[in-house]
């Protein structure tokens, strides 16, 4: 029994257990929209009833029971409406299953099982567009509102709401089943799920320091990654991703000046890095690597860990980083990875070695960081005019205002005597 007004209790129970309740409801009724409506309805009932009666011992289980009964009633009414037709086709089986399940007694949340993993895999199903997967995961699993998601991704709220409705309808209409995929599909599907989590993280992480609506996404992505790691403890890539996000996030406070300008890794005040996050990230990475199945996230986390372990920029083990990028390039060949490897080689060996590698990269002419990296190497080689041209090109292509300010600053510095 909780004292005081029921509103905070309902709110707290809802916040704590929302994803699990929603997952259990989707499992029971097979429909996202119906499950969401029913959960809202149950909260409304709780707000009306709990002031008059005692708050139930297990309020979450209470909400689930009320929500499920509400959903079953609606399914039954829909079935009766359909039964006027001579032919009743769809939903027969589901509605039959439903009538046998309604009369159970007291339930405890612990006995309900945990369907959140099914919820996550369904939200990240490859038959949905990447945009829809991100929006749906943030809404259904993380619990952000359509408005919050819309602001974080700079789209109109009606557009985002529409995207969510379409995704939920496609899940229902196209027969996307609510389950953890079969073993033979699991590796591919899991990497799809992790891609959504990492996309959410980077969208938050790359936000300019002032964009609070976006920055909250990196925290939520870490939380989501931890949840997946807890639900699937034997997947090294999941651990690797959480480690990677923690190691990136540990530098959060040092990445921008007070004025919102970018501070390069080598110039960051390393005492402002978050030691707790670093220790946890490295611990998770070690746990992941013990599985002996390195993947892209583990390798990226290993690279981030090398940076995190250098107490000064000069102590960075660039030879190790270049080797890790080499492994990553073999596993996931991409021009961006090739660029990162080139930069590491430049640091480990000499600027010219890096420059030679950069000049062999195709398809990245419109990527501002390629030109910024070239510019930096040219500057170090004393080829100032070429460096200036490369900085100008990078500035032209950069979208983030903080990046643009940084590149403009570099360009100005070129003229100064050193």
């Amino acid at each position: 029994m909780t004292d005081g007004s029921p509103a905070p209790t309902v709110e707290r129970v809802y916040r704590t257990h929302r994803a699990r309740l929603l997952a259990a409801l989707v499992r029971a009724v097979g429909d996202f929209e119906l499950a969401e409506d029913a959960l809202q309805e149950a909260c409304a009932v709780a707000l009306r009833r709990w002031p008059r009666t005692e708050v139930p011992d297990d309020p979450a289980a209470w909400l689930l029971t009320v929500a499920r009964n509400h959903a079953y009633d609606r399914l039954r009414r829909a079935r009766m409406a359909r039964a006027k037709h001579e032919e009743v086709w769809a939903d027969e089986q589901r509605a039959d299953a439903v009538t046998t399940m309604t009369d159970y007694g007291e339930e405890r949340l612990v006995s309900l099982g945990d369907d959140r993993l099914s919820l996550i895999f369904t939200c990240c199903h490859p038959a949905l567009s990447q945009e829809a997967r991100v929006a749906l995961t943030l809404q259904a699993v993380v619990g952000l509102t359509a408005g919050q998601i819309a602001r974080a991704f700079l789209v109109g709220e009606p557009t985002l709401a529409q995207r969510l409705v379409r995704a939920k309808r496609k899940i229902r209409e196209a027969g996307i089943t609510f389950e953890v995929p079969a073993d033979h599909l699991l590796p591919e599907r899991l990497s799809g799920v992790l891609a959504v989590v990492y996309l959410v993280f980077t969208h938050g992480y790359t936000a300019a320091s002032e964009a609070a609506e976006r920055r909250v996404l990196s925290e939520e992505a870490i939380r989501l990654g931890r949840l997946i790691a807890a639900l699937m403890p034997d997947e090294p890539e999941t651990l690797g991703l959480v480690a990677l996000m923690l190691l990136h996030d540990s530098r959060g406070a040092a990445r921008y000046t007070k004025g919102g300008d970018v501070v390069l890794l080598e110039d960051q005040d390393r005492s402002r890095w978050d030691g707790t996050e670093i220790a946890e990230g490295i611990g998770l990475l070690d746990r992941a690597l013990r599985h002996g199945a390195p993947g892209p996230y583990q390798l990226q986390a290993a690279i981030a860990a090398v940076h995190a372990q250098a107490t000064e920029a000069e102590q960075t083990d660039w030879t190790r980083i270049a080797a890790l990028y080499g492994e990553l390039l073999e596993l996931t060949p991409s021009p961006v990875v090739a660029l990162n490897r080139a930069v590491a080689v430049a640091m480990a060996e000499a600027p010219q070695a890096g420059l030679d590698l950069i000049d062999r990269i195709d398809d990245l002419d419109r990527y501002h960081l390629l030109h910024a990296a070239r510019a930096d190497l040219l500057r170090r080689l004393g080829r100032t005019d070429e460096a200036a041209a490369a900085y100008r090109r990078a500035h032209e292509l950069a979208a983030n205002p903080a990046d643009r300010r940084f590149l403009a600053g570099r360009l100005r510095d070129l003229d100064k005597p050193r």
Partner: protein
Amino acid sequence: MRYMLLIYGCDRPEPGDPRFEDALARVNAFADECMRRGVLVAAEPLKPVTTATTVRVRDGKTMITDGPFAETHEQLGGAYVLDCRGLDEALELAERCPLAEEGSIEVRPIVEIPGLHLPDDARRAAVPEG
């Protein structure tokens, strides 16, 4: 749940073509797998769009024109109807279909409309067993 796998952009070799036997063996292996699973409801290869005729009736007036209604990039070459456990099985079978390597396969759920008259065999297939 039933799905139609619409096959687009495939070039079907004719009997006598040296590629015919191989192509036939490959699609037959696919159909055999579908039958082994008990999901194959129908398989309907279509003649090329050059054989298509389009019919429209507007204000009671019938218009018959040569060719398909819409000029699409990739032509519809035929369809399978599969009765699967869910989208995942339909996608998995579409992936196994040899025609996916050559053209593309659109997987569309078939809608069940209460009261819609269908031939008996299609109706039997639409009602889940047991």
